[in-house]
């Protein structure tokens, strides 16, 4: 116990902290500028100088560790004089442009000068002038306002790990500059914006559009983009989100955001938003009233159900809609339309992979705390760059490396490049052999302990020597042995699995091998998720074989319980999955499709074919916020409210249920409300006055969410399995199918780029994200481009057996020689148009690595 005296007040400390922290804990405020609780100590601004008895010099409270018996004074006349002096120094070169500066009103420097002075200036020379920089799409830099606290640099380097900016030059000529020159050209996370205490680095999005004190309301909510589910605060003026900021201390992201989360919010205010229901009349989508549209949909569903039976109807749920939306949607499909033909795009990877892993390790195996990842001593990454797919999770891997942990990767990931990854780079289609060799070697070191017999039986069968692996994968025995040595030495191990493995040939067998490695290294699995409520859609039962709470529909004891609450019969047989739905629609077995917040014509592989199948349907209802490629084929389009316009909950990839809060008012209905209205018109009573009522029902019916309330999840700290329980002892035999696909000389393949700056097609409606990443491109290796005579910026035609795309080429030295990368984020110009639909027989995920393409130059 340390006891010290600050301003005459006795302060007791459990452990040694700085005098500044000790003072704050006692409610004594010491002014600071360079100090930030998230950053390393710096001691540069000198504002926190305090008097300490028995110490001859003044001491900076932010760097001095509190010691027993210390007597500190923070607010004497001498100290006030010192602070006045420091502030005067800061002001001699600081422009007094507060009336014009967006920071005014929340500027630390302004507040301190207000408190301490100086009242007038004694500096007669010219101030330093640095022109404002608008080089960057989302950030504006005004370096003459910079006070050199270096919080931005310490954030960029020490927390974000981007190391994009630094202090350039020396002394009074110091300024913050990106290494790349004039432009930041960085990850655009904007975390530098968060920590800048003055108006030197600011967001361009709200430039000169409001004053901080004009923000009347702010709402704590969850990011709409990826499966990490960062807490963010939406600040609103006149029903427009003016700014999104992070929250210090929040459980998932603790004050950090990525570029999508911070700058991607403007899609809600897009002029492209759908506003009126549309009904196709004489082949043209025509505006209609809500009553008319709902009535029409209800009648058509009723009619098709009675003519063709329930199995002729199907629904596709949304990975972006709330749990409440998804719950009611599947309830509608089952209880009102009477079919289990419900699925979502989670089927394209996440759902099948999770089911596979849970079958081995039990339900909830992937529900692991993201912030805990940095505490691992060893992390293995396979199948995607976590820093682009789930950026805030990626930061945890960087933090692990910074703390001395080992980062191992199968494949090379740009976002981890500066974090000493130990990489194995197997030749195309040889990762299976490599993983087999790792399992073989690891098994020999760590042994089997008998705790998971089903898995151990599989592991026992795996034998590939390092020598054989070297021959077949190109990875040297030495590298492999080094990799396995690190794995076998791991005490706290975590594995991060991305889509590139989940959506590859033989993915179920690879997942088995990854599970085996994880088992042998006694680790945790993190399954990357690209959508905000992908996990939630699964947990809400938007699956053909599972009811809410992940209970199998085929088991009568569960089915009966739901039937009694829903007062309806649920079909016993599992329904069709999303791919089977489209097959059945193609063959005419499915006549009507109800799509909520999903765009299969973009998000399913072979999307040209999907679009043509949509045309074949008798009746297609699309509920969305934008006129998607899918909606263009609809018979009825129902505009719904977007994130930030409605209440509800999301479940993130660690299965944390968090509140999504309405921040702005917009006319229209939430998805669940629209669904409920259709149900009512079909004679099924769905009376909920608000999203919370729906959540009450979820908590009543789902054993996993038992008795959960909005109050319980208020702070986002309710961890899986909440108050309920996962389903145990439901294991089926582990089935996995090995793929023997092999690469052939001269063949060229499509790769799916998963950019940091886009998430699905949603972010392409956010102007800021488009400013950073404006259009789809084809990324080619310099070697391939050279042999094909393609130069950077040339328009090239990419052709596969499924379709063609004409896009500009971007030549990069990092790209793999045998593939071209195209992202799937631009509706209508998406890479899935080229991809085929070979599915893994077990996980049912598409094998996206098999798409052969040709590339030719169209014009320079």
């Amino acid at each position, binding site marked *: 116990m340390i006891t010290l005296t600050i301003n005459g007040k006795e302060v007791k400390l459990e452990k040694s902290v700085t005098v500044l922290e000790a003072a704050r804990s006692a409610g004594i405020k010491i002014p600071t500028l360079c100090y930030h609780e998230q950053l390393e*100590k*710096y*001691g*540069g*601004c*000198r*504002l926190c*100088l305090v008097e300490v008895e028995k110490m001859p*010099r*003044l001491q900076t409270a932010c*760097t001095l*560790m509190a010691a027993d018996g210390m007597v500190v004074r923070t607010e004497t006349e001498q100290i006030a004089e*010192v602070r006045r*002096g*420091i502030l*005067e*120094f*800061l002001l*001699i*070169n600081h422009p007094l442009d507060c009336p014009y500066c967006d920071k005014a009103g929340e500027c630390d420097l302004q507040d301190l000068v207000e408190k301490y002075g100086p009242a007038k200036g*004694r*500096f*007669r*020379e010219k101030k330093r002038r640095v022109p404002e920089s608008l080089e960057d799409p989302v950030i504006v830099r005004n370096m003459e306002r910079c*006070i*050199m606290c270096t919080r931005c640099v310490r954030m960029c380097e020490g927390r974000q790990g981007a190391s994009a900016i*630094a*202090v350039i*030059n*020396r*002394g*009074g*000529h*110091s300024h913050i500059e990106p290494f790349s020159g004039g432009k930041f050209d960085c990850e655009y996370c904007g975390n530098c914006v968060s920590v800048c205490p003055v108006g030197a680095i600011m967001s361009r999005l709200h430039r000169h559009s409001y004053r901080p004190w004009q923000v009347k309301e702010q709402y704590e909510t969850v990011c709409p983009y990826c499966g990490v589910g960062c807490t963010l605060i939406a600040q609103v003026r006149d029903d427009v989100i003016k700014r999104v900021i992070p929250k210090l201390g929040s459980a998932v992201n603790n004050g950090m955001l990525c570029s999508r989360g911070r700058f991607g919010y403007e899609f809600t205010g897009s002029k492209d938003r759908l506003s009126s229901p549309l009904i196709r009349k004489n082949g043209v989508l025509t505006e209609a009233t809500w009553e008319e549209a709902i009535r029409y949909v209800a009648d058509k569903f009723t009619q098709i159900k009675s003519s063709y039976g329930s199995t002729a109807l199907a629904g596709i749920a949304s990975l972006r809609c709330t749990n409440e939306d998804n719950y009611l949607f599947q309830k509608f499909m089952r209880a009102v339309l009477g079919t289990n033909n419900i699925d979502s795009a989670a089927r394209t990877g996440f759902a099948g992979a999770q089911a596979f892993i849970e079958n081995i390790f039990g339900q909830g195996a992937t529900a692991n705390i993201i912030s805990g990842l940095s505490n691992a001593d060893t992390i293995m990454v396979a199948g995607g760059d976590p820093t682009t797919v789930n950026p805030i999770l990626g930061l945890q891997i960087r933090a692990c490396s910074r703390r001395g942990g080992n980062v191992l990767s199968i494949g090379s990931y740009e976002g981890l490049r500066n974090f000493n990854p130990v990489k194995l780079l197997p030749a195309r289609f040889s990762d299976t052999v490599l993983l087999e060799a790792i399992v073989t070697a690891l098994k020999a070191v760590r042994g089997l302990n008998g705790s998971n017999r089903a898995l151990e039986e599989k592991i026992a069968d795996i034998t590939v020597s390092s020598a054989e692996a070297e021959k077949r994968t190109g990875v040297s025995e030495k590298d492999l042995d080094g990799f396995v040595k690190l794995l076998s030495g791991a005490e706290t191990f975590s594995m991060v699995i991305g889509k590139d493995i989940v959506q590859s040939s033989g993915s179920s067998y690879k997942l088995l091998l990854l599970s085996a490695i994880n088992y042998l290294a006694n680790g945790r699995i993190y399954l990357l998720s690209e959508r905000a409520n992908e996990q939630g859609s699964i947990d809400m039962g938007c699956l053909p074989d599972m009811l809410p709470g992940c209970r199998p529909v085929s088991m009568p004891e569960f089915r009966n319980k739901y039937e009694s609450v829903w007062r309806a019969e649920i079909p016993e047989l599992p329904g069709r999955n999303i791919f089977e739905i489209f097959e059945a629609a193609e063959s005419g077995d499915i006549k009507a499709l109800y799509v909520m917040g999903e765009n299969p014509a973009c998000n399913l592989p072979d999307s040209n074919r999907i679009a043509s199948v949509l045309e074949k349907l008798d009746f297609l209802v699309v509920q969305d916020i934008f006129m998607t490629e899918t909606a263009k084929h609809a018979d009825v389009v129902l505009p719904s409210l977007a994130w930030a316009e409605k209440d509800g909950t999301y479940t993130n990839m660690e299965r944390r249920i968090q509140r999504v809060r309405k921040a702005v008012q917009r006319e229209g209905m939430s998805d669940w409300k629209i669904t409920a209205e259709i149900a009512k018109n079909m004679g099924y009573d769905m009376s909920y006055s608000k999203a919370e009522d729906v959540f009450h029902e979820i908590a009543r019916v789902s054993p996993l969410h038992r008795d959960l309330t909005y109050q319980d999840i208020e702070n986002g700290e309710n961890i899986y399995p909440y108050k309920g329980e996962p389903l145990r002892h439901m294991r089926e035999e582990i089935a996995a199918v090995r793929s023997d696909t092999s690469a052939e000389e001269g063949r060229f393949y499509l790769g799916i780029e998963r950019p940091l700056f886009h998430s699905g097609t949603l972010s392409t409606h956010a102007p800021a994200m488009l400013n950073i990443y404006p259009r789809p491109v084809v990324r080619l290796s310099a070697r391939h481009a050279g042999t094909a005579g393609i130069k950077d910026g040339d328009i090239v035609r990419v052709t596969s057996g499924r379709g063609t795309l004409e896009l500009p080429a971007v030549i990069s030295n990092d790209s793999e020689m045998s593939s071209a990368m195209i992202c799937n984020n631009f509706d209508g110009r998406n890479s899935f148009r080229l991809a085929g639909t070979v599915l893994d027989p077990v996980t049912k995920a598409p094998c996206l690595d098999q798409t052969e393409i040709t590339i030719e130059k169209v014009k320079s």
Partner: protein
Amino acid sequence: MEKILLKNIENPNSADINEYRKAGGYASLEKALGMEPQQIIEEVKKAGLRGRGGAGFPVAMKWTFASGDPKFPKYLLCNADEGEPGTFKDRPILEKNPHLLIEGMVISGHALKAEYGYIYLRGEYPEAKHILNKAIKQAYDANLLGDNILGKGIKFELAVHQGAGAYICGEETALIESLEGDKGQPRIKPPFPVNVGVFSKPTIVNNVETLSNLPYIIEAGGEAYAKIGTPDCPGPKIFCISGHVEKPGVYELPMGTMLCDIIFKHCGGIKGSKKLKAVIPGGISTPVLPADKLECSMDFVNMPKHGSMLGSGAVIVMDETVCMVKVCHRALKFFEHESCGKCTPCREGTGWLRAILERIENGKGTDGDIDLMLAVAGNMIGKTFCPLGDGAASVVQNFIKHFRPEFEDHIREKKCTVTG
């Protein structure tokens, strides 16, 4: 006094290992390798050796802190970033007697159980870099460096790292930052380098001259060494005298030689028939002394009693033709240029002081300017991150303290009254 540090440097080949050995070089190393590390530290303690970089910190104490730290490896850094204006005392060792330094470093490395050494060399000493590298290679070839020195199973690796010309890198933590490849800026202390230094390992930073004392201490013993100089500050000291004296240059004299003696006895007095006006006794950061205050013993303990400091022992002598405003302005230009920019008072204060001095120099000073300078300097002193800012502010304070009328004349006459 026999020369210890600058021994033999008149020999044009003094930097060569054979010449050095002929004159008895590396005998101390052999002796030291037969001693226990703790014994060497004891000898240094008996010798009363103080760091020659400017602060005069007792070397044995610093060494004890470092050798008591359980972390390994330990690093020994030689601070050869001789950047204090007026200072050129290390240069003759580096260029003429490099093996003395190398021998001193190997002995120190053994005493500290440090197996790695770096010489952090001033960017503006390209010739010294060449000479040092050659000498290090000779030492490796002679098995005086490496992993089994003289077959005694003792390891010491040594390399030269050249700075990029920043004055602040003479500050030991900034030196460490720079050596690690970062921008040269001082670090927060504690932790001190002796516990967490370069690459987060225990690190001892000693000046060139300091380390060069080691061979003699081992050879003659700590007690004999302590008899040179003053009881508080024993040993030889290299003084470098520049400015208006008849014989400027480098002088190895006992610590505690009187300042007036250095100027008038050793350097032949003031050049020509001019009158002495002022002396800066230990490099530009040390307080200026007027001509009538030179009866002081040049050592770390006595100089503060006379209102100045020994600093690096760089004596800058100025005669009556020198304008004190101009000197002060020139000094502040230097400090403004060299301020690293980390802390507010130094970054902004040095520039502001320079600006005021500049306008006084240019005949645009106003009545309140002297008090304004004192106020600005007062807002810097004791508030900066490292001593650079304190040094800059104290230069202004001391020039005004001793030569205020000259500043007033400048402002009133709107021109220099000394040089016309």
